[in-house]
C-alpha cells in the first residue's frame, strides 16, 4: 500500500481518477460517447472523453520533450509555444509557396512537415547551445525565443494569414475519413510509443538523468553532458514540430499571437504534476504524459461546467496548488506526524486507562 502511495506515478493517476470520479458523481454524461457525422460526411466519435484525448495530444507530445529537457538541464523551455508558431508558420509557408490562399498545395504535406521539423529542431538547437555551451539557465535562455518567436513566425509569412483549403491537410488535426477517432490521438500515441522504445533501447534515460543530477561526475564517466543537454533541446524541437503540425492542421491556418498560447505553462505543469523535480535529475516519462492528460481533463471538465475560457486559469490554479501542496514532501511529513500524534495520543489514553 505504502509502496503504491510512494510511487511517483501515483500522484497523476490519483488526480486523474479523482477528476473522473468527480465527473461521474456530478454528471455521468461526461462519459457519454456518441457517433456522429461531420461536415465531410465521415463518421466521427464525439463526447468529452474524445475531446480530452483529442485536445490533450499536443500537450502530451510536448510533455515528452519537456521532461527530457527538465531532467538534463534542470530547467524548462518556456519558448515551446512560440516555437510552435514558428514551426507551424514554416509548414504553411512551404505548403502555400507564394500564394497565401492556394487551391492546390505547392509541396506535399510530408515535405512541409520535414522542413517545419528541421526549423523547429534548429531553434531547439539554438536554445540548446545557449544552455549547454554558454551555461545560461534554460528559463532565461529560452526567454529569448519566447520573446521573438511569434514575431519570427509572423515574419516567415510576411504577416499574412495563409489558409489551406485542401481537406487532406485537415486530417492531422481532425479525422481521417472512415476512422472515427481523432487523428491527433494516434499521432500522440505514436510519439509515446517511439519515446518508450527509445528509452528502452538506448541509454537516453540514464544519460539525461546522470547529467541532470551530477554533470561533472557524468563527464568523468565518459558522458558528454554538453551534447546530452543539447540533444534534449533538439528532441523537444522535434516534439514541437509534431505539435505544430496538429495545431495548424486543426485550423488549416495560423494565428501568430494566439496559436499554442500559454502551452509552455501547461507543458511544464504536466511535468511537475508527473511528480518530476523541476530542478532536474530523475524523471518518469509515463507520469509526465499522464500529467498532460490530467491537465486536459481538468480543462475539459471546467469547460463542461461552462467556465468561460478566460476564467479557466483561476480554477486551474487552485487545482494545481492543491496537487503540489499534497505532493510536497514537507506537507506529507507534517500530515503523517499529525496523524501519528493523534494515534499516539489515543494510545496514551488507552495506556492511562
Amino acid at each position, binding site marked *: 500500500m505504502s509502496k503504491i502511495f510512494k510511487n511517483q506515478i501515483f500522484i497523476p493517476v490519483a488526480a486523474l481518477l479523482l477528476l473522473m470520479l468527480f465527473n461521474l458523481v456530478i454528471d455521468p454524461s461526461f462519459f457519454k460517447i456518441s457517433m456522429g457525422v*461531420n461536415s465531410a460526411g465521415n463518421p*466521427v466519435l464525439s463526447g468529452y472523453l474524445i475531446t480530452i484525448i483529442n485536445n490533450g495530444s499536443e500537450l502530451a507530445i510536448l510533455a515528452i520533450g519537456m521532461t527530457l529537457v527538465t531532467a538534463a538541464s534542470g530547467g524548462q523551455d518556456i519558448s515551446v509555444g512560440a516555437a510552435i508558431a514558428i514551426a507551424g508558420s514554416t509548414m504553411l509557408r512551404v505548403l502555400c509557396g507564394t500564394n497565401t490562399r492556394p487551391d492546390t498545395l505547392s509541396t506535399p504535406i510530408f515535405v512541409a512537415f520535414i522542413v517545419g521539423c528541421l526549423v523547429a529542431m534548429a531553434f531547439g538547437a539554438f536554445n540548446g547551445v545557449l544552455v549547454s555551451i554558454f551555461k545560461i539557465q534554460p528559463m532565461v535562455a529560452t526567454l529569448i525565443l519566447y520573446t521573438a518567436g511569434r514575431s519570427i513566425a509572423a515574419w516567415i509569412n510576411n504577416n499574412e*494569414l495563409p489558409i489551406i483549403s485542401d481537406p487532406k491537410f485537415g486530417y492531422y488535426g481532425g479525422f481521417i475519413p472512415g476512422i472515427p477517432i481523432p487523428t491527433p490521438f494516434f499521432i500522440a500515441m505514436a510519439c509515446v510509443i517511439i519515446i518508450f522504445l527509445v528509452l528502452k533501447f538506448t541509454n537516453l534515460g540514464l544519460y539525461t538523468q546522470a547529467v541532470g543530477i551530477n554533470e561533472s561526475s557524468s563527464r568523468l564517466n565518459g558522458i558528454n553532458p554538453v551534447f546530452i543537454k543539447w540533444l534534449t533541446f533538439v528532441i523537444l524541437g522535434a516534439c514541437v514540430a509534431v505539435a505544430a503540425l496538429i495545431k495548424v492542421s486543426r*485550423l488549416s491556418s495560423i494565428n501568430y*499571437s494566439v496559436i499554442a498560447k500559454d502551452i509552455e505553462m501547461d507543458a511544464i505543469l504536466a511535468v511537475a504534476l508527473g511528480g518530476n523535480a523541476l530542478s532536474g535529475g530523475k524523471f518518469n516519462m509515463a507520469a509526465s504524459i499522464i500529467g498532460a492528460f490530467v491537465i486536459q481533463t481538468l480543462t475539459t471538465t471546467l469547460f463542461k461546467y461552462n467556465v468561460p475560457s478566460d476564467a479557466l486559469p483561476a480554477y486551474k490554479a487552485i487545482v494545481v496548488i492543491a496537487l503540489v501542496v499534497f505532493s510536497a514532501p514537507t506537507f506529507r511529513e507534517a500530515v503523517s506526524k499529525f496523524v501519528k500524534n493523534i494515534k499516539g495520543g489515543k494510545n496514551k489514553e488507552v495506556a492511562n486507562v
Partner: protein
Amino acid sequence: MFLSVFSMAGCTSVSSVEDIEEVADTQNVMEDDTDEGLIVIGFSQVGAESDWRKANTESMVKTFTREKGYDLILEDAQQKQQNQITAIRTFIQREVDYIVLAPVTEDGWDTVLTEAKDAGIPVIIVDRMVNVSDPELFKCWVGSDFELEGRKACEWLRNYCENKEIAPEEVNIVDIQGTAGASSQIGRTKGLKDAVRANGWNLLEEAAGEYTQAKGREATSRLLRKYDNINVVYCENDNEAFGAIEAIESAGRKVGNNITAGQIMVISFDGVSDQAIEYAKNGKISCIGECNPLHGPRVEKIIQNLQQGVTPDKYEYVDEDIFSGDSTVTSIEVDDSVYTIKILGK
C-alpha cells in the same frame, strides 16, 4: 492578395478609387509648396487581428508613400490602448504633422488628445469612434456606420425569412460579439438587438468573440453544446465567422441557408478577404455586411484639405455594400434608402 482586395473594393465602391487618382494629382502639385519636404504622419493602428484590419493598414501604407511626399510612421498597438497612448506621445515628441488614430476602444482619450492639441498636431480618427468631452480634440472622423451595417444584415435576414415563410419564433440566433467596447461591436450588436425586438426572433445568447477566429470557434462550439436549436449565428466579423463555421462543422452540423432542414446560417461582416467572399459564394456564409477598410484615400483627401486650410466635414462615412450568394433577396430598404444586394455568382 492585396491586389485582389483592391479590385474587389473597386467593384463595390468605385467612387473612392477615382478619388484616389484625383487626390494624387493635386498632391504632386502641392509638393513644391511645402519647404519641409515630407509630410510626417503618425498612424497608431489597433493591431493586425483580422483581415479587415490588415486591409485597412495596407490601404494607409499604400496611400502615404514617400513618392507622394509623405512619411508614414506606423505603430501597431497590438490591441492595447496603453500602447496607442504611448505611441501618440512618441508622435508628439517627434513633432509629426498629423496623427491618425484607429482607436482600440472609445473611452479614455481625453488626456492624450489634449496633449496632441496643445502641441498643435491635428488628429484624424479612423474606423472606431472616440468618446471625448471636447469634440475639438480631434479634427474629423472617417469610418463606417456600423449600426447601419447591422441593420442591413438583419433586414436581409427578415426578407429572407419572409420569402421562405419561416416564422419569426423559429429563428434562434446567437450573437458572437466583437471586441467589447469597440464601435463596430456596439453598432452591429445594436443593429441586431433592434431587429430582434422588432421581428420577434429569439436571441439565445451573446458571447464574446473578440474578432478572432480562435475565439469565434471556441464560443460557437460552447454554444452549440449548450443549445441544440441554434439556426442563425450572427458573427460580428469574418474571422469570427470562419471560427464559427469550423466549430459547426466539427460538431457534425452543416452550415447553409436551409435552416428549416437543420442547417445553420452564418451571417457575417467585413467581406474583405478572398476567403470570406469564397464562403459567401458557396453559401457557407449566407450574408456579409461589407465594411470598407480602404480609409487611406479618404484620410489623404482630408489631409490635403487641411494643408490648404479647408476644414473637412467632421464625420465622413464610407460607402458600403451587402453581399450574398443566395438570390432569394435582391434588395432591402433601410431608413428609406434602398440597397441592392450584390449577388455573388458561383
